[in-house]
């Protein structure tokens, strides 16, 4: 009797956990499916590369896609070195003490700041005080501040996943701290590090609230929309999605919105897949060979 009940409970638990896992997958599939159903027809070469429109139907999202990548890369250029350095310091160098606690506490507090607050901070500091105006640079720096804590944490966790015995081994043949970090710890954590960076790239790519008041909601017309200058308004795809639905006057707002949402979701999904594949490949490469 008790045996039977135990077995039933066990089967029930397995089933419930399996069900919850399936639910997650189904939610994603439903979301993607629904967006493909709605936005699929909007996607065309013209939509992906064409200029956006303020008033008339038939606009594209070319400049917005360009700006999304532009701001992503600019943000990574600032975020990756700083958070790598901070993460390495916290995990490998900082002795437990008040300074380490202070840095850790600051990073964690920073991580809890809502992105819209960060956007207003960027508006005050970069857009107004520094007089950069709505610009890709203001947006990228705002996103840098927003994502520093997360990427620092990613770095710390990636480094923490490297067994201490490897550090000891390096020290035991006369390696310095820096040599140990550079030649053993960082290469050994390259997989989780890359995965973390690419996942955060997905977040940067889809970030909206922090960009509305910093990178702006407009793009220049014509070729100027693809300018390389960081000091120009640079509406991203995610911001465009919000903007068309809340402010724009175009008649085909639903089509543009659905299409943008689909492109955005696909991009973020691609980031996730790339994160896994590249992370695994790099780990394999490092462990197999020099």
């Amino acid at each position, binding site marked *: 009797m008790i045996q039977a009940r135990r077995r039933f409970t066990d089967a029930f638990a397995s089933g419930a956990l399996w069900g919850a896992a399936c639910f997650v997958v189904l939610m994603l599939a439903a979301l993607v499916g629904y967006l493909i159903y709605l936005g699929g027809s909007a996607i065309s070469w013209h939509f992906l590369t064409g200029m956006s429109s303020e008033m008339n139907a038939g606009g594209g999202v070319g400049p917005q896609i360009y700006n999304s990548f532009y701001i992503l890369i600019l943000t990574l250029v600032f975020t990756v070195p700083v958070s790598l350095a901070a993460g390495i310091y916290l995990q490998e160098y900082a*002795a*437990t003490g008040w300074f380490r606690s202070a840095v850790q506490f600051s990073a964690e507090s920073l991580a809890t700041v809502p992105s819209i607050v960060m956007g207003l901070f960027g508006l005050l500091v970069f857009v107004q005080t520094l007089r950069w105006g709505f610009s890709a640079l203001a947006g990228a720096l705002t996103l840098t501040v927003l994502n520093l804590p997360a990427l620092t944490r990613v770095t710390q966790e990636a480094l923490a996943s490297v*067994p201490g*015995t*490897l*550090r*000891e*081994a*390096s*020290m*035991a*043949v*006369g*390696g*310095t701290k820096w*040599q140990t970090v550079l*030649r*053993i710890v960082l*290469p*050994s954590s390259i997989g989780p590090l890359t995965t973390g960076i690419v996942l955060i790239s997905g977040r940067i790519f889809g970030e909206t609230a922090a960009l509305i008041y910093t990178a702006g909601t407009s793009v220049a017309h014509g070729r100027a929309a693809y300018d390389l200058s960081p000091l120009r308004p640079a509406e991203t795809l995610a911001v465009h999605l919000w903007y068309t639905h809340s402010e724009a006057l175009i008649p085909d707002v639903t089509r543009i919105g659905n299409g943008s949402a689909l492109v955005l979701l696909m991009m973020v999904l691609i980031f996730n897949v790339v994160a896994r594949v590249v992370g695994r490949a790099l780990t394999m490469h*490092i*462990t*197999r*060979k*020099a």
Partner: protein
Amino acid sequence: MIGANGRGGPREKMKVEDMNVFYGSFQAIKDANLNVAEHRVTALIGPSGCGKSTFIRALNRMHDLTPGARVEGRVMLDGENIYAPSVDPVTVRHRIGMVFQRANPFPKSIFENVVYGPKIHGLRSHKALVEVAEKSLRAAALWDEVKDRLNRSALDLSGGQQQRLCIARVLAVEPEVILMDEPASALDPIATSKIEDLIGELKRRYTVVIVTHSMQQAARISDSTVFFLLGELIEVGTTSEIFTRPKDKRTEDYITGRYG
């Protein structure tokens, strides 16, 4: 052969004077004194938690890496205190290498593991690195087993091979002293006997200090034996003395199996 007592016999390579080691407020080693003879194998024995691993890690300043650990007293290497403020711990570890309880190869190729030390000490020429790799792997009795797959991952090797690779990695930087912290405790009997044979070879060129939980192993491979109990260094003597005529009652109790 009188090794540890210093009456004639081999030269004294290392000398520990009044060593105390603390983890925070806990004292793990109490007033230890020891002479380590050159080109001899010195075994540290004692029950679990007696401080033998703590002691050996103090011999090349590995405790510098442990937060909260503190070492007092002097550890002389060729008459120079390795804890003197002017001494660089990195140089100390270059001269006094260490092999750990669990094999810890880097997640790199076999070749890259062996040449890691020489590389970080500035050896660049590929030809020279290849020579060092072969020499070190031969000295660690691993060459014949891996010479055809030097570019394969070190993680593909068996546990015993990994441990010999770690020994080769230490040998490649040509240390003067090799510390081994229970190097065979995670290995099967065949791999263990290979490591033991190797240690017998190594003492011709190096001074070896080894922690072992196996009294049989200490008896087989060491010239002198040191018995630790509860953080105290109880007795030092030639291995045959310790195992046949221990002076201290506590040593005798341990040798005859009356302690865990």
